[in-house]
C-alpha cells in the first residue's frame, strides 16, 4: 500500500473524485497557476495538468468571491471544493457560510442542497495572528455545517471523499504541521504524518471517531495536531505507569459522542486538548457533554489544555508558550491523579 503525506492523500482524493464525477471542481487562490505551489500547501499541485483550468479554477484574492461562487455553484448542481489559503480568511466569508450555505437546506424545506466542500488550513506555524488561528469551533456552532478534522493521511483522503459526496456544506480543517508539504512549502516543526493510503476508492464515514491508543487510566481527546501531542504525552505517561487512551473524533460535527463517553466510562478521567483559545471552545463542549452524560463515571475533574485567550503570537518563543505542548498535556493528566 502506498505511503503518502496528508497533502498527497488529499490530492489523491480530489483526483479520484474529479475523475468519478464531472460536477466536482476546485477553486481557490493560486491552486493551479503554472509554476505555482498547488495552493499554499501543495494539495492541488499538478491537478490542473490533468483537469485543466476550468476545473482547477484560480480565483482573485477575494474570499467573498470564492465563497459566493462555491455556494452558488453547489446550490445549482455542482460539487465545488473551495481552497481557503489560510483558515483565518474564513472570517471574510462568514455571512455566506453562516447565513446562506448553512441555512439554505432548512429554509427551503430541504429542496435546496448545498454540496459544498471548503478546505481550510489551521494551526500556529510562525505566521502571526492572522495566519495561525485554529477556528474550527466557530463553525461547530453553526447548525447546517459539517466540520471535519482529519489527522492522518488515510482519514484525509477518506473523509474528503465522504465530504465531496455529502449533500451538505462541509468544512474540512487541515493542520499546517500535518500536511507533509514538501519543498518551499514545508513548514518548520512539521510532523511527518505519513501513512498508508489505499489506492482504491474508499471513504471514511463522517461522524465516526477512532481510538488512536488504548489505555485504562485517562482519556485524552485531541484533534488535528493535538492528537499527536496527546500520543506523545501518553508515551511519557506510560513510563510513569499511567495508561492514557487517546481519542481522535476525526469529525467535529457530527460528533462521535459515544466513543468519548465509552472511553471515559472506562477511565474515569478526561483531558481535552485543542490549539484554539480556551474560552467557549470545543474543549468546553466536550467537557460539558461528558459532564452531562457520564458524570457518575468521573473520578476527577475534567481538564482542558488549550491556548490562552490571546491571538496567536508571532514571536517563536511566545508561540511555543501559546500552543498546547506535550509537557502541558502530561502535566494536566498528572493533576488528575
Amino acid at each position: 500500500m502506498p505511503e503518502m503525506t496528508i497533502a498527497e492523500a488529499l490530492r489523491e482524493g480530489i483526483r479520484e473524485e474529479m475523475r468519478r464525477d464531472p460536477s466536482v471542481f476546485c477553486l481557490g487562490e493560486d491552486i493551479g497557476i503554472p509554476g505555482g505551489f498547488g495552493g499554499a500547501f501543495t494539495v492541488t499541485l499538478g491537478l490542473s495538468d490533468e483537469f485543466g483550468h476550468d476545473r482547477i479554477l484560480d480565483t482573485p484574492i477575494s474570499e467573498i468571491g470564492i465563497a459566493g461562487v462555491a455556494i452558488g455553484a453547489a446550490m445549482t448542481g455542482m460539487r465545488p471544493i473551495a481552497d481557503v489559503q489560510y483558515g483565518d480568511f474564513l472570517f471574510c466569508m462568514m455571512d455566506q457560510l453562516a447565513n446562506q450555505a448553512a441555512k439554505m437546506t432548512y429554509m427551503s424545506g430541504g429542496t435546496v442542497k448545498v454540496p459544498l466542500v471548503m478546505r481550510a488550513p489551521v494551526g500556529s506555524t510562525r505566521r502571526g495572528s492572522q495566519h495561525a488561528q485554529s477556528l474550527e469551533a466557530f463553525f461547530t456552532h453553526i447548525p447546517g455545517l459539517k466540520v471535519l478534522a482529519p489527522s492522518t493521511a488515510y482519514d484525509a483522503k477518506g473523509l474528503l471523499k465522504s465530504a465531496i459526496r455529502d449533500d451538505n456544506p462541509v468544512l474540512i480543517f487541515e493542520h499546517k504541521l500535518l500536511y507533509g508539504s514538501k519543498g518551499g512549502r514545508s513548514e518548520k516543526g512539521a510532523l511527518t504524518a505519513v501513512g498508508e493510503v489505499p489506492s482504491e476508492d474508499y471513504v471514511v464515514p463522517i461522524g465516526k471517531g477512532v481510538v488512536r491508543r488504548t489505555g485504562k487510566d485517562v482519556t485524552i481527546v485531541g484533534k488535528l495536531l493535538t492528537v499527536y501531542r496527546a500520543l506523545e504525552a501518553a508515551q511519557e505517561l506510560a513510563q510513569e505507569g499511567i495508561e492514557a487512551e487517546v481519542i481522535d473524533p476525526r469529525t467535529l460535527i457530527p460528533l462521535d459522542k459515544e466513543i468519548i463517553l465509552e472511553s471515559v466510562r472506562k477511565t474515569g478521567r478526561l483531558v481535552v486538548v485543542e490549539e484554539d483559545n480556551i474560552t467557549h471552545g470545543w474543549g468546553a463542549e466536550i467537557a460539558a457533554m461528558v459532564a452531562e452524560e457520564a458524570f457518575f463515571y468521573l473520578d476527577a475533574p475534567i481538564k482542558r489544555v488549550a491556548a490562552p485567550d490571546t491571538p496567536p503570537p508571532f514571536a517563536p518563543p511566545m508561540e511555543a508558550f501559546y500552543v498546547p505542548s506535550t509537557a502541558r498535556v502530561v502535566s494536566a493528566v498528572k493533576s488528575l491523579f
Partner: protein
Amino acid sequence: MATDVIVPPLGTTVDTLTLIAWYKQEGDAVLKDEPLFVVETDKATLDVEAPASGKLHSLSAQAGDSVTALSRIAVISAEGEVIKPPTPNLSPKQAPTTKAEAPKPTPPPPPKPTSLKRIFISPRAKRLAESRQVVWQSLKGTGPEGAIVERDVNVYLERPAFTPTLLPVTLTTEAEVTELVALKERLQTMGAGVSYEALWMLLLVRALKGYPKMNATLERDTVTHWEPIHLGITVEEGDDLRLAVLPNTDKQSLKTVLQALELMPTDSPEKPTFAITNLGELGIDSFTPVVAMPNCPLLGIGRIKPQNGGNYSVWLSLTFDPRLVGSGLAARFLNSFAKSLQNPLFALL
C-alpha cells in the same frame, strides 16, 4: 439506630482498663470493624474495633482515663440519625470512671454540631462506594485536592479482613481445699484410692451445672452452649500436654471417672466443652493455662499447698476467650467453684 461503644471485658482480675487513645474524634465517620480505640490491660494494649458504621459522638472518656469493662464510652449513630444526648448508663458498676482526681461527676458533654469539614469524593468513587455500601466519609482521599477517588474505595474494599487482637483472659483465685485434702485421705484409708483429677472433674461438673453458660465452645465466631458436659483434661505426652476428653462427664460416677482416667481416652470424638489442666503434681503453683486461644474455657489447677494451721490451698486460673464468656460470669463461676471446694462432700452428693 445508635450503637453503644462498649469497653470490652478484657481485664484479668479487675475490670478496669486504661483508654490509651481514640483513633477517631467526636463527629468523625467510622466504619464497622475498623480500629476505634486502643485500651491497655495489665497484659497488653489492644485495638478495639467499631461495633457499627456511622458517626462517632458522645465520647465520655479521654485518652488516659480508666474505663470499666462493659461501660459505654461513646455512641455511633447511623448516617442521618438525629443525635440525642445519651441516656445514662443503667448499671452503676458499668459507669465509665474518669480520672481519680476528677472532683465531680460531669454530665456527658452536649453533642457537638456536625463537623463542617467537607469531604470531597469523585462521582465515580461515590457511585462505587454506595453500590457496595461503603461509608465513604471516613475513607482517606488520595485524589486531586485530597478527594476520595475510585482507587480509595477499591483499597478499602480489598483491605484484608480486620482481625481483632483479642487476648485470652485469665482469672486467678486462691481456693481453700483443706476439706478436699481430708476427704481424699479418708477415702484412701477406706481403701478407695482416688486421684485429685477425678475429684476435680466431678466437682467441676457440679459447678458447671450451676453455670451452664460456662459449658461452651467457640468455633470461628459462633458460641455454642452445651447441655452435655464433655470435660477435657490435659495429659502428659512426651514433653507436651495434650487434651484428652471424657465424654458426658456429667453422667459419670466417681468410679467410672476413675476408670476412665486410668484408660485416659485421648481420641474421643467429642470436643471438650470445658477443660482442666492440672500442673499441681508437677509442682506448679499457678500458671496461665494455655498459650493459644482456647475454644472452650480452661481451668488450670495448681499445686495443693499446706498453709498455716493445717489448712491447704490451691491456685485456680480460669482462661477463656472473651468472646466466649463474659469476665463477670467467669469470675462468678470461678468464685463459686472455689467455694464448693471448701465443702466437697456436699458438692459430690
